[in-house]
């Protein structure tokens, strides 16, 4: 149902196609933009165009990249023997904030989802296998989400990679720091017990 004249309705329709933006929000954002200063709206439009022109997928790890390779693949100081597998580029950002990891990444661009019918073929798994044989990888760290899809993906990759004689590890599950133990669910608390470690005091 088109309530507005051509260009306004087009704008609302386009905004409404963005993830997490419903028809009401699309309408609100559209009217915000119409009221905004022309240079503000142009800057937004230009930054979308620039990003689409200049940014694409790293041809090695499928992170976002300006040019052929992403910043991590270009950086010679990163340890090429450690490869951390994530679902999306934004997971790299979260891991980088910890400053704990000095290896390289591989972005699957999704996760196995049996209920959506998304299998390993729709992920960057073939490309991962190519990298392992060619780049001297010694350890694979599975850092997919700790939900059903992420765990299915981690289990699938573990089964696939173990026979290749590479060390395959999974990031730990446990209690969120700063929370109370009594609120933890059974799966999380169970894993926290299994993953306990000696205290150096």
């Amino acid at each position, binding site marked *: 149902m088109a309530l507005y004249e051509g260009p306004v309705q087009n704008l609302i329709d386009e905004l409404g196609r963005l993830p*997490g933006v419903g028809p009401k929000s699309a309408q609100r954002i559209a009217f915000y933009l119409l009221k905004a200063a022309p240079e503000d709206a142009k800057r937004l439009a230009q930054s979308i165009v620039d990003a689409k022109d200049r940014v694409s997928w790293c041809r090695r790890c499928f992170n976002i990249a300006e040019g052929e390779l992403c910043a991590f693949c270009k950086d010679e100081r990163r340890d090429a023997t450690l490869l951390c597998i994530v679902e999306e580029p934004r997971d790299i950002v979260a891991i980088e904030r910890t400053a704990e990891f000095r290896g390289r990444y591989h972005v699957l661009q999704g996760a196995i989802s*049996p*209920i959506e019918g998304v299998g390993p073929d729709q992920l960057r798994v073939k490309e991962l296998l190519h990298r392992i044989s060619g780049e001297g990888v010694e350890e694979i760290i599975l850092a997919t989400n700790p*939900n*059903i899809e992420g*765990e*299915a993906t981690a289990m699938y990759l573990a089964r696939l990679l173990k026979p290749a004689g590479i060390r395959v590890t999974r990031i730990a599950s446990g209690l969120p720091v700063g*929370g109370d133990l009594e609120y933890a669910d*059974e799966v*999380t608390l169970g894993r926290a017990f299994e993953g306990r470690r000696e205290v150096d005091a």
Partner: protein
Amino acid sequence: MSGLYRDSGVVLRTIKLGEADRIITVFTQGNGKVRAVAKGVRKTTSKFGARLEPTTHVALQCYRGRELDVVTQAETIEANRALREGYGLLTHAIPMLEAVDQVAQEREPNPALYRMLTGALRTLATTRSPVVTPAFFWKLLSLEGFHPLLDACARCSENDAPLVAFDADDGGMLCAPCARGGGRPVSPAAFDVLQRMLGGGLNSVLADPAGPAVGEVERLAVTVLEHHIERRLRSATLL
């Protein structure tokens, strides 16, 4: 009807909503299929944690909404943790959830189906048997009113000849001459598994060593179920 209610149920599926929420589909004991928003569940500090993930059997408190309910509390009844820690178990558990999602009606209790699903998930988690999922599908079909004919040809009623194929339209097994006009071939070993599975010998099948016959019965069950619900079971592609 509005206000708070309590119920127990199995989480069938989840979809992301907004920044940190999910809509969960739960098959409950007292309210049938229910869709509810779990607010903040994707944050690592969520009080729900893993309790609202598919395969989990939970006790819920929800606030009834017009279209979607809102989960206010969740406690685990059975975590069925083994199911999410083995790839083969998870790929066998999810198709059962998808089938129930297809068959169950919103806000219509179905106590028999509820008992079947909670029982099947528990049995799969403890026995790890590949027989559980096909047995569940055949029981589900029978609950839906489809009882396959296995003791005589479903097309010509011949009951002396060996039965060698299955046809969902005819409603059962076919003899060799009838099978020439269509039907899906069934090996003698798979037919034996099918007969025991549906004839009250499920425990004997559970004790069988794993073999190709169970896989054949599973694929047949998926085909017949898809025929019955007139939809594809998407998750069955990973079986």
